């Protein structure tokens, strides 16, 4: 495995795919879509405090971009291996001195780079609320970086599927199923398992005794972790809490802190962390800091870690599948 070999394959992929020129049209359409969505979001969002408009737009736009990127990414790699096999361009590559890992990582790199270029087109709109000062630059950078990594993992997974499955139509379908399972299957599973972790609890003694249903998600929170939406929302650095003071001038000290309603990302992040620590461990708070990190640890490292493991595993599977001489072939696969 050399960087030279990897870049050689990546450059070949670029040249063979990008010269068709269709990408210019696609990029143009994508840019227009994001432009329109950004403008609509900006117009639709009306909060009491104009500085919150940017916060709400930022969160919604990023979710929108993430959703579309998750739909685009599988298409970038879903046919790279079996499609090349069908066209007869893979075998000549395998008989050169290029190693299977060089071929696999070069192809992945090229696809990921295209995904990043598409993501790059959305940067002006993501930067908009940041430049207006509504969103902290760190939050902008973290969110874009997390999205970039998630694009890479989606590309890697669907590339592995294209190496495992003989027909490119099937592998494309499976890629989309996988991405949907990660995006929505995780949430669905979490909700469906909630009755399993719900129990009646008895509180108090004697006449004050009462019974309440309590859902304790300490054993199921990890189901949420691999969802790209959860990862993005939880990884976004929290916004400072807003100080609200009583309008009654007679009591100037009566101020408290609350979370920013317009912050979609922050809200989801708090919810999943709460799911992790369970029902009793987080209380409503009016302090400047709602809780300390150690009392409600982050969920996103698990999710992102899972995605990186998945991506690494997928790359290894792809490289393994490209190894020749092949002893066994998947059904319906012709070497050349």
């Amino acid at each position, binding site marked *: 495995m050399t960087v030279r070999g990897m870049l050689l394959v990546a450059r*070949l992929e670029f040249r063979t795919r990008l010269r068709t020129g269709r990408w210019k049209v696609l990029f143009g359409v994508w840019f227009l879509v994001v432009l329109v969505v950004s403008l609509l979001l900006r117009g639709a969002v009306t909060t009491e405090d104009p500085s919150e408009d940017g916060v709400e737009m930022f969160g919604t736009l990023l979710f929108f971009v993430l959703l579309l990127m998750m739909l685009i990414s599988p298409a970038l790699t879903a046919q790279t291996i079996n499609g090349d096999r069908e*066209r007869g*361009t893979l*075998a*000549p590559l395998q*008989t*050169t001195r290029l190693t299977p890992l060089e071929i696999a990582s070069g192809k992945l790199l090229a696809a990921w780079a295209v995904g990043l270029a598409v993501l790059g087109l959305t940067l002006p709109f993501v930067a908009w609320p940041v430049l207006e000062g509504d969103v902290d630059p760190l939050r902008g950078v973290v969110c874009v970086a997390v999205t970039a990594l998630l694009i890479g993992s989606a590309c890697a997974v669907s590339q592995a599927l294209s190496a495992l499955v003989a027909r490119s139509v099937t592998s494309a379908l499976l890629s989309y199923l996988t991405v949907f399972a990660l995006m929505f299957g995780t949430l669905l599973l979490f909700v469906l398992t909630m009755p399993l972790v719900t129990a009646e609890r008895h509180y108090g003694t004697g006449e004050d005794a009462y019974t309440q249903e309590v859902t304790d998600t300490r054993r199921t929170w990890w189901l949420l972790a691999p969802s790209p939406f959860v990862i993005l929302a939880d990884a976004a650095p929290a916004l400072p809490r807003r100080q609200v003071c009583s309008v009654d001038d007679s009591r100037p000290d009566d101020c408290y802190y609350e979370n920013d309603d317009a912050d979609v990302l922050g809200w989801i992040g708090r919810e999943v962390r709460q799911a992790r620590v369970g029902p009793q461990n987080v209380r409503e708070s009016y302090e400047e800091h709602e809780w300390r990190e150690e009392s409600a640890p982050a969920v996103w490292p698990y999710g992102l870690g899972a995605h990186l493991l998945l991506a690494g595993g997928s790359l290894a599977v792809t490289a393994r599948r490209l190894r020749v001489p092949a002893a066994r072939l998947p059904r319906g696969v012709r070497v*050349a």
Partner: protein
Amino acid sequence: MEDEAGVYARGVTRAFGPVQALRGLDLTVPYGRVTALVGANGAGKTTLLLILATLLAPDAGEIRVAGHDLRTHPEAARSALGWMPDTFGAYDQLTVAEYLQFFADAYGLTPPEGAERTRELLVRVHLLELAHQPVHVLSRGQKQRLGLARALVHRPKVLLLDEPASGLDPRSRVELRDLLRSLAAEGVAVLISSHILSELEEIADRVVLVERGATAGEHEIATLMAEARGLWRVRALEEEPLASALDVRQMPYRRQETGGLDIGPLTEREAAVLLGELVGAGARIFSYAPVGGALESVYLAMTEDRT
């Protein structure tokens, strides 16, 4: 002695599920010669070539390509062999020169070496004028030549060609033949599979007959041709003196509607002796040639024996 051959294969077997594609095939491809692999569709020719090209693992058997054991050193074998598949997998968007340059890079040639080798090969396969055209504008014959140039980019000592002549026009075939002959003259071990038997006669020095996944015979083409008995078509200015000369010698013949008489079957030696006699008897012969290919008759005779 074994390692003096470009390809040395003994007892190669390979099954695809329940289908036994190769059942103990033996093959030797010496350096400096063109060996033809001949067999019916499904006889296992392509499977064998895929195994030799290090793409497919055999179930059993001993194979050395350019002296490298395929089981233990496939990478070393890969650097020494060039493989041209029966289908040309095109990267449509690349130009002809870029295509070759890429494979030069992939085989580890330095960029200047690769550029020089690319130019050299384009001249050799007559594609220099098309160097900057995209691959997809090439005709089938031109693509075939580009595929051959690709297989040669790293100066392999062993060249494996799967049906290189299929779909080529006569001019391209002649050029392919000349190219392969010149490579053999340079010491390359060439293995070529084909159905087109009459053509192999001109290209190949040796022929290996493959039948149902096993070797059915290895022959020198020259010997085959000398020993084979075939029909000969004789044309003379006047047919009657020729026909009576044949009658005298009790040589069976058949008149052809297109003119000329088919005589035989005769070996080359017998035919030559007969020609002298006929001319001596006053037949004014202007054409005397074997009908069809000798290889074809041998192949048909051999496969007939076995069924």
